């Protein structure tokens, strides 16, 4: 049998094109002839490699087809949109810096205004300063507008709603107002269509977002279910002052279906890349802990867990509680959220504190 026939036979055997007699003959041939057997093994390996290539190519072809289709529908950004996406890209890259710069500009403008009015007899200057302030506010307003637009653009196209509710994210939130306001991270609920909050007892309530700020990563949810019973007094408070290095802290959250306790300490007064709006804390967290409270020994909520460092364990960032007050100010009374003012956890044993707290920690989930 020459080699051409042999390779042909190997391929026909592989493709199942042989008659039963041929199969018996071929298998005998392989068994009794080591050289042929080796050639067959080698050729089969080679054909398998070719098949893999064929399969992947067919698959890639389909991938490209789907990609093109979705690009035409606008679900996938196209290359033509490069200019726009570049801005988006730069914005995303620098928006934290821009936010910081904007706030510094605010501080500078206030201090110069004071100095100018103190040292100048000329009243015109004093008249000019509020104008500057006004322009700044306009500028800030424009920045916000641009941001909203860009965020809308990045959200691309929303998927059609599914008829049945299946949660596809889970995080933590906690009550800031007993009448049914819960705070959590903005990144948790940004793309959510439906949001459900669940307490320790497993009671579920529908909730809707009433405030989302992607820069500070804070969001407020309002429980819209009438079955929710209002809480007269929350036991914890939110300090406006900065917490101290080395303070012992703990958190409660829902990395699992059950509420989980974790403790650690405050390791730096600034967050990622010197971000002064957050703390660095040392604690072990998992997905699902996002949005959980960071509580000190007096039962004060000093922060809200938001992110963690990628290549280090236990380096977690928490948004300072002061930002909650800023958020409320920003809402300008759209919702009547009243933060608790009386702390009833101070001086209690940690176990008792947790018992008093855990009813107000919620699992936030949705799709």
């Amino acid at each position: 049998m020459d080699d051409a026939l042999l390779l042909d036979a190997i391929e026909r055997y592989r493709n199942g094109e042989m008659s039963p007699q041929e199969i018996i003959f071929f298998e005998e041939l392989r068994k009794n002839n080591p050289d042929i057997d080796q050639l067959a093994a080698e050729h089969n390996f080679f054909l398998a490699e070719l098949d893999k290539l064929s399969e992947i190519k067919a698959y890639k072809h389909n991938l490209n087809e789907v990609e093109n289709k979705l690009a035409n529908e606008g679900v996938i950004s196209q290359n033509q949109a490069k200019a726009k996406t570049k801005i988006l890209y730069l914005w995303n890259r620098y928006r934290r810096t821009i936010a910081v710069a904007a706030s510094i500009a605010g501080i500078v403008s206030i201090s110069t205004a004071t100095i100018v009015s103190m040292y100048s007899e000329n009243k015109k200057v004093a008249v000019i300063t509020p104008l500057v302030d006004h322009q700044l506010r306009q500028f800030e307003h424009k920045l916000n507008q641009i941001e909203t637009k860009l965020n809308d653009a990045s959200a691309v196209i929303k998927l059609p709603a599914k008829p049945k509710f299946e949660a596809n994210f889970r995080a933590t939130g906690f009550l800031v107002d007993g009448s049914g306001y819960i705070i959590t991270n903005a990144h948790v609920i940004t793309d959510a269509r439906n949001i459900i909050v669940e307490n320790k007892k497993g009671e579920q309530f529908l909730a809707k977002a009433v405030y989302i700020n992607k820069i500070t990563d804070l969001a407020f949810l309002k429980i819209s279910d009438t079955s929710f019973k209002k809480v007269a007094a929350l036991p914890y408070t939110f300090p406006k002052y900065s917490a101290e290095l080395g303070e012992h802290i703990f958190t409660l959250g829902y990395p699992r279906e059950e509420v989980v306790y974790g403790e650690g300490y405050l390791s730096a007064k600034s967050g990622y890349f010197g971000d002064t709006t957050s703390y660095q804390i040392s604690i072990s967290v998992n997905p699902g802990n996002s949005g959980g409270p960071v509580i000190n020994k007096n039962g004060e909520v000093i922060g809200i867990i938001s992110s963690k460092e990628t290549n280090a364990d236990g380096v977690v960032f928490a948004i300072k509680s002061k930002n909650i007050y800023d958020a409320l100010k920003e809402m300008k009374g759209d919702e009547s959220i009243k933060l608790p003012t009386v702390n009833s956890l101070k001086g209690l044993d940690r176990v008792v504190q947790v018992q008093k707290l855990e009813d107000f920690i919620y699992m936030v989930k949705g799709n």
Partner: protein
Amino acid sequence: MNIYEQEKVLLEGLAANDTSAIETIYRENYSTIQAFIVKNSGYPEDARDIFQEAMIVLFEKAKQESFELSCQIKTFIYSVCRRLWLKRLQQQSRYYPASEIIKETVPVEDELEVHEKLNVDLTLMENALNKIGDPCKSILEAYYIQKKSMPEIADTFGYTNADNAKTQKYKCLLRLKKIFFAQYKNGE
């Protein structure tokens, strides 16, 4: 159907190279991945590359016989894309994100290792095909890659009959095998 059954159907569709399954997975996951990559110093075009690669990893996994995904598709895709993207950033020694939002991931190192190896193998075969030149390359691709029949190939390439085409294919095949195995052994 609950979400697990839905996902099983999707993966079966994927293994069978079904376009509608591919489309569904794209629709449900693409924007998240793009947002992740753009947020971490990438361009939307990078997202297309990375997402395609993750789809291939998922395809390879879905085709394994005893295959069961221990997590949701979106978690798997996110984990693979995240790994691939961070790796690419590292290779280009570009800015490596030190902080990111806490999102569920699963370990995908094993899958990516298998995928890398497969990529190497496929590149070997493609290189060999490129080296043998035309018409050999086209004939072999028509038969082995596009799975066309011999009479069809004879017709396309202007052979008088299928047997002539077959003889030519045989000669080409021997050359391809020679180059492929030479590379293969060098690579080891």
